[in-house]
């Protein structure tokens, strides 16, 4: 197993549902894709638009929070 691999326990019932959807050999890839997609949704939900972020950074610099 590669050094950067992490073991994640899944409840047995959930594992069976994933195995049905992805096949026995596809469980790992299925879970990894689901986690990536969930993270992307989370980050999109909170990330400000680029123009907004530029204004935020400018204010943080003006107030001394950023160099």
């Amino acid at each position, binding site marked *: 197993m590669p050094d950067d691999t992490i073991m994640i326990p899944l409840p047995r019932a959930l594992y069976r549902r994933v195995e049905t959807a992805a096949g026995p050999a596809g469980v790992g890839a299925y879970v990894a894709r689901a986690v990536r997609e969930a993270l992307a949704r*989370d*980050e999109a*939900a*909170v990330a*400000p638009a680029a123009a*907004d*972020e530029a204004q*935020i*950074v400018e*204010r*943080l610099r003006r*107030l001394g*929070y*950023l160099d």
Partner: protein
Amino acid sequence: MIAPHGGRLVDRVLHGDARAEAAARAATLPVLEVSLEVAHDVQNLATGVFSPLEGFMTRDELDHVLHRRRLPGDLAWTIPIVLDAPAAALRGVAPGGALALACAGRRFAVLEVTDVHPLDRRAVAAATFGTTDPGHPGVQRVAALHETLLGGRVTLFAPPPDPHERYHLSPAETRVLFRLRGWRTVVGFQTRNVPHLGHEYVQKTALTFADGLFINPVIGPKKAGDFKDEVILEAYQALMRHYFLRDRAVLGIFRTEMRYAGPREAVFHAIVRKNFGCTHFIVGRDHAGVGRFYGPYDAHAIFQEFPDLGIVPLFFTAFFYCTRCGSVENEKTCPHDAADRIDFSGTRLRRALEGADPISARLVRPEVAEVIARFPDPLVGAGSPGPAR
């Protein structure tokens, strides 16, 4: 970065043309004059501090929060966020209508009214504070509310004035700040006091296991005997300048009033810091408590009801300075007698300020003591109105 409570950061602040249009519309609407404290809670709603709330609670939302400690839909929420209105302001107001909200005569937001419902003061006080004792400051505050509540979403077009604007960051801003600093784990610290060595001990202990610390004092109306806002901010500036690494700690304010709701407010405080981007939240002894209304660790126990809260509470028990150890300790780390301990009580600090006792360097950093000493009147007075709507 931790997701906001409910998964989406509310943003109901208008800019540019949309702001101008809203201001023009507000000029045509009936006006409800509100206090500065309510105006700041409107700002909290609009900027996502209170995500997922987008406005003041409807009757259904309030009932869920009071009786189930959750919103409809089952998301954890423990403190009522309500808007009261006098009868004179309600003429012609009905669900489907809108009101302009004004503070000191200046329109700043629009409320889309979806619900007009009566306030049951006793039920709100009993559920929120666990008491209807008129000696509780939160009960007093509820008793002073008007009889009718308005529910509905708010839209902010002119943020209320803030003398502490320099430290007033929105959740969108703190999240960008934490990300640019490379903080994946952030500990939030709630306070309504000047810092003593016990606070510093807790903050640094928690910071040991995280990337960054967000010191987030509540700035707003407090009860008599609490420290004034400007004293708290200057004291923290002094502490952080001399005793914290600049790239490991951030000071930003939470503009609201203390509810003194003990356990329920501890959960509310954790949710708010989750919205600011914190992954962990420090919960101390008698968090958000007042007098003897709550047990010393009731605010720890309540978190067992919310395994789905999404922010990790860090529970701290009582700590003290041990003269034998020569450091701040707690009951698990110090083997010495009570006679060797100096307690970090607000009473002890207030006595020192009143000149009854010296301010010990074992209680408060000298730079912080120096700041406090510069204020002739550092405490909220007995005659002050305190938390009021």
